[in-house]
């Protein structure tokens, strides 16, 4: 079965710093890739997704992610974080209805 690795457990940044959260997956076939975000006290919600085409995808709130097939990676980026980006971020991969999530990365942005 496929697996998803998020190497950063907890990231602490100051406002305006740049963000990159790593995500690697193990499956070698065709996959769809996602980043979900969970703000404190809220449901998980979709941040962005990659199905096909341009490997650089843009999501909500200024986030983007780049799919690098040769590296099995789908890293999340934001050039300048805000305090409101404090949340937990989950990378996910789906193949044939089987959707797997990474362990999550907690992002704390200091004002």
């Amino acid at each position, binding site marked *: *079965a496929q697996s998803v690795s*998020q190497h950063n*457990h907890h990231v602490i940044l100051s406002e305006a710093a740049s963000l990159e959260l790593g995500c690697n997956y193990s499956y070698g076939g065709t996959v*769809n890739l*996602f980043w*979900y975000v969970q703000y404190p006290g809220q*449901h*998980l*919600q*979709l941040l962005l*997704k990659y*199905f096909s085409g341009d490997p650089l995808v843009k999501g909500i709130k200024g986030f983007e992610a780049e799919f690098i097939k040769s590296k099995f990676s789908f890293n999340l980026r934001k050039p300048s974080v805000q305090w409101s980006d404090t949340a937990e971020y*989950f990378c*996910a991969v*789906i193949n044939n*209805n*089987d*959707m*797997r*999530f*990474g*362990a*999550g990365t907690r992002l704390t942005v200091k004002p």
Partner: protein
Amino acid sequence: SQTIHQWPATLVQPVGSPLSLECTVEGTSNPNLYWYRQAAGRGLQLLFYSVGIGQISSEVPQNLSASRPQDRQFILSSKKLLLSDSGFYLCACSSLGFGANVLTFGAGSRLTVL
């Protein structure tokens, strides 16, 4: 758009008691349905998924089972709870067509086994 209802929101049960968590979906038909367990530092662990009525795929051998008696109903059960079953359980759905494979999550059910 799809809406997921999960209940109960919180549940405290003694070890050895049975469990039934329910999930129903509105706003779509023939969805794929999922049960996840969310644990701090471990992300979301896929427990079961279903692509149709009566069709259940189990990902992790454990004390839990799932059933899908109707198209938009997904139930997580146990005959005898263990302490290790404590956790936060999330139901999710996705549907075919535009936005396929994008999951919508319920609010979750927090289970404490004492």
